[in-house]
């Protein structure tokens, strides 16, 4: 049931249209607008130079500039200077998506002493120049509307101060596999208390179950034992095993984790959460490459146990194993299936197992049925070694996978080998090993819904951005590390969880932290405390309070996430999210519809350039002067110039392009075959 549908009789539609009036702010009067070329990404399609001239005439706009890279340090410095010199009270940057540079330009504002929230980002790249690169004129018109909307919005922008909250110098690490254990050690060493929460009876996860590990040859159990010994020596780490995460509440700096350990219910207060819950191995379906139909088809994990527990001879089900076929990409790279991704570490893992077999037992033949061998980096050495040991590699394609059948008590493999012109091979082996990939844990949905971590199309937990925010999730204070984020080997898992530890320490180190002030606020005059807002808030952020003799709603700014869900349900329009007020949104709509007087003449740019300075070539390389005189009143291609001047065409290209760079020559369109540009002198 939606609250909007409740009390149909008591609320009429007109309530929803009430104009919010109480938050009056002074409109911004001195606005600076910066329109970015993005090195052509925008200016190739949108006429940014014309737009910046048009925008310069807008009311309240003091400065309007087009810049090559708004994000470059020099432009940032210019902005700071403009803000100071021109006493700007707000800025608009029209460049790429706000996901990339909001922080960059907020910092520009801060450096110039302007409140960072008196800045608006306008996306004229992803949602304009690129989206409409087929229609440059329309893109220019749209960009005008977008920028106008940005200006309108920034006029209503308010100076906001970050919310400072106390941060618990404690971290909840969910999952005590190698990633979680390792991060716990560093988090504690950096001065935080750590609660390491493990579902199973023992720590160590998948690594503890493993035998010999690539690339170091260490034993998995030994690695975990050593690490666990270290953890037990650190008093700041509390380990809970057999522990279940029941509920998560609160927000960055102050989360409450409700954890049950056997019969005991605990409440842990932490400032941040690191999720290192790991992965499951893909379980082959019955009949997939003969799995479960033949006793001689097992997974790589089962095979590794077998290698570890066999002595002298490799024996399975009482039979000596003399030949093994490894089938790769089982449950990975399924172009039509659920797991489109590559599981990254299985090629190396399988080859490493094969090498372990050779080291421990003699006379075992190995066939590797693969699609691409992905022993990236130094792991390539494993592949080289396995080839050197005589392992046979057979390449199959997804559309023609190997068939595994039991014939006359033999396990027979039939496969087309793409390394020998798709020749069909048929041979029997003693054991088939399915090299299975990694999949998200079966309980990952439970974790993601408790912590509100989004998942990607591969169903693993998703970071915000693989390069900018690789361990951060959309939930402030919740970080991810290791394989819960996607397939990784051990080193990579540890690196990612330690990277998360680093980021967590940067926010918790002081014991206080600052949060963005984008939260809800209540108009005390009009609020009637009907409880509708509190009923829809999932973050428990709204409580009643007495004010001037009546009850009104009050927002807890550290738990409020600024989703705005409370806004539309308020019958008196008394609650709103700052930065998303009626004034701001509605003035944006007005801005979109503003009529643009765009000059549609394509040659308008050409005329501008003619004022450029002409270069004197005295003392410059001789070839420059020769090229310049050959191009006097003519347009020529590089091969034509090359022939005329008797200079090799690559040397000529180099010099001509340098002259182009320094404004001596410029291109004058393509020749008839559209193979070569013609060049002319730049007057």
């Amino acid at each position, binding site marked *: 049931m939606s609250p909007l549908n409740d009390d149909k009789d008591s609320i009429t539609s007109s309530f929803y249209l009430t104009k919010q009036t109480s938050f009056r702010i002074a409109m911004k009067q001195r606005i600076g607008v910066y329109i970015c070329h993005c090195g052509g990404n925008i200016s190739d399609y949108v006429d940014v130079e014309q737009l910046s001239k048009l925008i310069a005439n807008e009311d309240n706009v003091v400065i309007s500039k087009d810049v090559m890279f708004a994000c*470059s340090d020099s432009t940032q410095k210019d902005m700071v200077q403009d803000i100071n010199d021109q006493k700007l009270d707000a800025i608009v940057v029209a460049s790429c998506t706000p996901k990339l540079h909001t922080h960059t330009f907020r910092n520009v504002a801060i450096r110039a002493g302007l409140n960072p929230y008196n800045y608006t980002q306008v996306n004229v790249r992803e949602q304009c120049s690129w989206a409409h690169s087929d229609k440059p004129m329309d893109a220019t018109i749209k960009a005008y509307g977008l920028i106008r909307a940005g200006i309108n919005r920034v006029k209503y922008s308010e100076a906001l101060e970050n919310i400072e909250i106390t941060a618990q110098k404690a971290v909840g690490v969910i999952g005590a596999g190698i990633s979680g254990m390792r991060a716990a050690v560093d988090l504690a060493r950096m001065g935080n208390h750590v609660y390491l929460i493990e579902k199973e009876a023992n720590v160590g996860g998948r690594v503890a179950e493993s035998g010999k590990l690539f690339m170091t040859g260490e034993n998995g159990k030994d690695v975990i034992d050593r690490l666990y010994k270290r953890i037990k020596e650190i008093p700041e780490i509390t380990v809970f095993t057999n522990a279940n995460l029941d509920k998560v509440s609160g927000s960055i700096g102050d989360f409450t984790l409700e954890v049950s350990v056997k019969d005991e219910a605990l409440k842990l207060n932490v400032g941040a959460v690191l999720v290192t819950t790991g992965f499951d191995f893909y379980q082959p379906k019955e009949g997939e490459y003969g799995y479960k139909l033949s006793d001689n088809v097992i997974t790589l994990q089962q095979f590794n146990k077998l290698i570890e527990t066999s002595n002298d001879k490799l024996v399975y089900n009482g039979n000596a194993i003399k030949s093994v076929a490894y089938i790769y990409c089982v449950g990975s790279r399924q172009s039509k299936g659920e797991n489109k991704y590559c599981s990254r570490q299985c090629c190396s893992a399988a080859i490493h197992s094969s090498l372990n077999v050779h080291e421990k037992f003699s006379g075992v033949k190995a066939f590797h049925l693969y699609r691409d061998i992905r022993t990236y980096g130094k792991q390539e050495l494993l592949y080289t070694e396995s080839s050197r040991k005589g392992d046979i590699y057979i390449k199959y394609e997804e559309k023609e996978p190997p068939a595994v059948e039991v014939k006359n008590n033999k396990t027979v493999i039939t496969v087309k080998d793409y390394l020998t012109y798709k020749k069909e091979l048929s041979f029997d082996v003693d054991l088939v090993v399915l090299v299975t990939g990694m999949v998200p844990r079966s309980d990952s949905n439970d974790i993601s819904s408790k912590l509100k971590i989004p998942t990607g*199309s591969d169903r693993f937990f998703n970071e915000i951005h693989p390069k900018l925010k690789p361990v951060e999730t959309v939930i402030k204070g919740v970080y991810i590390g290791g394989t819960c984020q996607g397939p990784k080997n051990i080193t990579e898992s540890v*690196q990612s969880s330690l990277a998360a530890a680093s980021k967590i320490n940067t926010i918790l180190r002081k014991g206080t932290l600052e949060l963005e002030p984008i939260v809800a606020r209540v108009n005390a005059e009009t609020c009637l405390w009907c409880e509708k807002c509190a009923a829809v808030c999932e973050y428990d952020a709204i409580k009643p309070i007495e004010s001037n003799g009546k009850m009104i709603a009050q927002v807890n700014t550290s738990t409020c996430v600024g989703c705005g869900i409370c806004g539309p349900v308020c019958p008196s329009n008394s609650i709103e999210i700052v930065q998303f007020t009626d004034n701001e949104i509605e003035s944006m709509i007005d801005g979109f519809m503003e009529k643009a007087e765009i000059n549609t003449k394509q040659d308008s740019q050409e005329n501008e350039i003619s004022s450029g300075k002409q270069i004197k070539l005295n003392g410059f390389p001789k070839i420059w002067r020769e090229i310049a005189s050959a191009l006097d009143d003519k347009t020529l291609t590089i091969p034509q110039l090359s022939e005329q001047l008797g200079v090799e065409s690559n040397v000529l290209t180099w010099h001509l392009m340098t002259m182009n760079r320094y404004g001596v020559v410029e291109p004058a369109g393509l020749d008839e075959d559209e193979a070569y540009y013609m060049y002319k002198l730049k007057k």
Partner: protein
Amino acid sequence: MPENISNKYDAVVIGGGIAGQETALNLADMDYKVLLVEKELSIGGKMIQLSKVFPTLDCAACITTPKMSETARHPNITLMLNTDVIETVKTNGHFDITLNIRPRYVDEALCTGCQQCEWVCPKVVEDSYNSNMVGRKAISIPFSLANPKIAAIDMEQCLHCKKCEKVCVPKAIDYNMQPKRVNVEATSVIVSTGFNLFKPKNKPQYGYGKYPNVIDAMQMDRLIAPTRPYNSLLRPGDGKVPDNIAYILCTGSRDSSIENAMGCSAECSNNPICSQICCMYSIKQAQLLMGALPLADITIYYMDIRAFGKGYEEFYQQAKSMGVNFIKGKVAKVTPKEDNSGNLILRYEDVATGKLKEVKHDLVVLSVGVLPNSGIVKTFTNQKLELDDQRFIKQVDELVSPSLTSIEGVFVAGTAAGPKDIPDSILSAGSAASEAASYIKRFSN
């Protein structure tokens, strides 16, 4: 460099590429004092040269420039550019580091980066930022996105005509600038010196350096980048718009035949390992080329496609569906077509048919591999900073503590420890920061 800078740091980060910046920022955000030493004139490393980056196709500049600005202006980070490490000595648990700041012959405090000097300078030199595909001036800003954006004179090439001095309004030119020695003390050292690209001349059968339309992948990335050297995407041999482009993967990777071919050892030795990034950057370039030159044919000659990271396999499949041609086969030789067209003939063994084939292309891109750049180890004089068999910085506890090196207090980040793509370099940098911070904290308590 201001005279009054402190000479005591919690951490000295050597190398200002993406990994060095990320490590420095993490430590600085924890309120540690960091000195970032860079041998070039600008921070940014290899990443700032790139066009866009896989698998999201974000432009590299959009991700790097904000990080560069943040690094350059962080109150806890001091930048030292154009600087070499001379010696690092560990004494009483800390490091004494001697640095040499080479002169740039332009006063950093005065230069505004206006480039007037560059315009009037008559001496044209090779532009290494653009992989030498175009010229720049003997005095110039390092590149348009450089940070700091300050000019420098290439004194070996300078004609001493003093034209630059005449046009420089703030009087920033100083021909008599001298190198400067600086001694600093640090609690910890982070080595983030990155990697070198394989020099394709060391595979002479591919004709790099001989045939101008054989280029390496970094040159192609420059050609595609918005800050590209040419007015459009053209081949360097004669400025033709290419329409049939070949990629030769594993050039200088997974290859033990290099040493024999050239009879040299140090710089061009064998590289038996996989470089981890070439498949993906080639697929990325292919996708970008399909966008820039919709009519062009693009063929990738490969051994195995290693699309292993998050979203990479999907990115590879997307390239296939866009029409990029993938051929499993090892290219034996590249020769020029004998008609003066500048086109090239590739001879390769096609694995699918087993036949030896010859195909014409008008531009050949060599997807060169990753080699170590670990000369820094020589500067550690009283303790040995060990290398692994491939001459990358040795990770002494690779599985559990990937940033630890053979010297306590020295950590490794990014590709200095081995080939890595950008996301992995950034994670490795975060992990090095975590280790270093833990170490500094223990040390300072």
